[in-house]
């Protein structure tokens, strides 16, 4: 974006009040900013404007011009407006000097009523089974502009129902109001132009091109932007009505991008994740991989209670016993005999306490396990650890992987007698069960049971991303906050509490680190302690991190907090007129 010192402002009259907007603002956006929301179906602010739903009709007028080509001023000193006799769509018009708009007038209301009646002619009356009910634009506007009864006497047009468009999206064509948002999304954002309309008139049908499926990694965004219930998520379909869902602001922890999300839950069950608008991170989109990556929190393999190995068998134990047992087993070893395997999926607070744990044990061998995948040029990042930057900032990540290799070799050689893994599976970095069998002491803090936890001396069950609070720094250096959407299962405890108890059990209540830390009663205390030591967090508290995050590092993940480049919105390709 060319950095103009002062964008040119134009005067626009909206509902008899004059406002100023930067030149180039869409009229529909200007009206919304002025407090007059204009109903719309096809318009989406991140997509191009085809102007095909006709819902956003408004009355518009240009300034009256005198013979001298100057606007004629009214008694109030403002230009008089020459109203056009016919309504215009507000989504395809930009503001211009002296423009007049009426969003509430008899003509506009009549237009909206007419458009609604046409839209509802072929729309089925299946709101009771439609997943969109409750967040459906058609429902909302038909409350305001719909008719009580139908004047349509003929049979409704039959269209395909329950069409599987792709692995994650199911289409009900009868509900479709032909707004083409999904088509434009696939073309403009996902670059996977698979959707289109076929047939004509009231038989126009949305479908995938022959031989193609809607299976790109962003397909579920079409479900979000669909103003009606035509496109539905196969995962969420018929599972839960949206009005039961408690919405918690959070962000996706499946890669370093950290797309902002809303987690929809009911009674401690997560039903869906949807993207939340944040122009500094993810615009309004997120990938399907991240969106659906929450089912593991509900799995049967979740660790539900702390366990301690007694008589060569893992036995359930109480928390105080498990913590005490871990501490007494770890204490006999000196620093170079112990290693800590932390995770890039841990929050900053947990990583900070992991650092304190390393301090109290004198451990120097500590690293996170890198996790990479293929990046696309939309949102998905190659770094699949959500908090690599946080781990680097807190000096727990080597980055090169040499420390990991060192740990692995030291375990095999028998130098390392005690290993602590925090939310990470050591099998992932080549520490196989044979390696683990050589360790006298192996303490595990994790969510899910696996081959490694089966060999542990002490198992400490912890919580997943939706079950706890904490902060992470995404790939672009933005500090974001996780909020608790559901309660953890069984006796699993918050990671930071486990780590705190472990540190205190190892170093003793009156140790130097404890004295410095003061009391750590809440996660806010942990953040405060961390912010005193880490300059990048200075002046922040966990609660003060806004829902849109705070930039703490520059775009390369290096210290410094210059704002990153705004996520590049793809220029809408102009449709041939």
């Amino acid at each position: 974006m060319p950095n103009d010192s002062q964008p040119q402002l134009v005067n626009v009259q909206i509902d008899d009040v004059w406002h100023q907007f930067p030149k180039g603002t869409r009229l529909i956006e200007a009206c919304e900013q002025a407090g007059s929301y204009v109903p719309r179906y096809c318009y989406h602010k991140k997509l191009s404007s085809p102007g095909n739903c006709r819902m956003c009709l408004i009355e518009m007028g240009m300034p009256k011009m005198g013979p001298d080509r100057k606007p004629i001023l009214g008694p109030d000193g403002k230009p008089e407006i020459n109203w056009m006799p016919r309504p215009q769509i507000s989504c395809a018009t930009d503001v211009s000097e002296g423009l007049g708009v009426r969003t509430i007038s008899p003509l506009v209301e009549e237009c909206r009523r007419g458009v609604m009646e046409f839209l509802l002619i072929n729309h089925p009356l299946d709101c009771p089974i439609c997943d969109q009910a409750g967040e459906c634009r058609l429902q909302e506007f038909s409350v305001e502009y719909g008719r009580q009864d139908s004047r349509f006497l003929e049979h409704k047009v039959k269209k395909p129902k329950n069409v599987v468009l792709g692995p994650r999206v199911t289409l009900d064509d009868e509900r479709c109001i032909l707004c083409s948002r999904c088509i434009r999304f696939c073309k403009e954002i996902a670059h996977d132009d698979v959707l289109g309309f076929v047939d004509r008139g009231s038989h126009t049908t949305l479908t995938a091109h022959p031989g193609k499926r809607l299976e790109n990694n962003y397909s579920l965004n079409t479900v979000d932007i669909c103003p009606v219930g035509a496109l539905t998520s196969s995962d969420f379909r018929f599972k839960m009505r949206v009005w039961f869902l408690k919405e918690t602001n959070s962000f996706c922890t499946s890669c370093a991008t950290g797309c902002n999300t809303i987690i929809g839950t009911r009674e401690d069950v997560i039903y869906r994740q949807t993207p939340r608008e944040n122009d500094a991170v993810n615009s309004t989109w997120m990938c399907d991989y991240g969106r659906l990556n929450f089912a593991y929190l509900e799995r049967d393999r979740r660790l539900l209670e702390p366990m301690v190995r007694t008589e060569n068998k893992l036995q359930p134990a109480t928390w105080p016993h498990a913590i005490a047992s871990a501490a007494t087993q770890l204490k006999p070893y000196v620093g170079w005999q112990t290693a800590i395997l932390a995770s890039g999926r841990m929050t900053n607070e947990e990583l900070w306490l992991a650092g304190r744990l390393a301090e109290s044990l004198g451990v120097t061998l500590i690293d996170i396990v890198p996790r990479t995948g293929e990046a696309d040029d939309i949102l998905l990042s190659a770094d699949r650890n959500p908090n690599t930057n946080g781990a680097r900032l807190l000096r727990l990540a080597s980055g090169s992987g040499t420390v990991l290799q060192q740990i692995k070799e030291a375990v095999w050689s028998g130098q390392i007698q005690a290993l602590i893994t925090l939310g990470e599976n050591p099998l992932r970095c080549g520490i196989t069960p044979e390696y683990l069998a050589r360790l006298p002491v192996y303490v595990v803090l994790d969510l899910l049971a696996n081959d490694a936890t089966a060999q542990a001396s002490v198992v400490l069950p912890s919580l997943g991303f939706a079950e706890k609070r904490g902060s992470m720094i995404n790939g672009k250096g933005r500090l974001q906050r996780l909020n608790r959407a559901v309660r953890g299962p069984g006796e699993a405890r918050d990671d930071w509490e486990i780590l705190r108890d472990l540190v205190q059990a190892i170093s003793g209540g009156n140790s130097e680190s404890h004295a410095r830390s003061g009391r750590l009663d809440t996660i806010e205390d942990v953040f405060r302690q961390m912010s005193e030591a880490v300059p990048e967090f200075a002046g922040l508290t966990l609660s003060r991190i806004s829902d849109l995050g705070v930039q703490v590092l520059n775009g390369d993940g290096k210290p410094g907090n210059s704002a990153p480049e705004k996520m590049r919105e793809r220029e809408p390709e102009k449709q041939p007129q």
Partner: protein
Amino acid sequence: MAITVSRPKLNWSERLYLPAILGGMAITFGHLKNMLLGRTKVTMQYPEQKWDSQMPDHYRGAPALVKDEGGRVRCVACQLCEFICPPRAIRIVPGEIPLGERFAKVEKYPEKFDIDMIRCIYCGMCEEVCPEQAIFLRKDYAITGYTRAEMVHDKEKLIEIGGVMHGLVLKWNEKK
């Protein structure tokens, strides 16, 4: 301004209270006598005498799921009743009707439909909110059980109470 209520001046016999006491005892004795002579109307003796024949049509008894003439359980698991239910007595687990079934067009059905009759307050909001004319308050009122689990009406029980309802709007016809 405070109002001063003057106390009544009692005369000698009134202050003795005995006439009032005897008067009161005469009244209670009168009631006793009328009861013994069978002149007083008393409460209906419930299990022996019942009111069923005089129950008005708008009587709100146990909520139940009805079938229509076509034999379809009308509920489509929209969960509006679950939402509106003031004591949160209703719990629905929705399911999808597989393709090829008789009522596949409806797509959605309640896999589980439980009404906790200990919680139910018979307000009739579920019936009022139902967009499918699927749940009705029937005239069953003697809902009893020995355990809490017994007092939860599951789908089968609700359909059994509901029975078949005639004259409902049939909106899921193939033609519509």
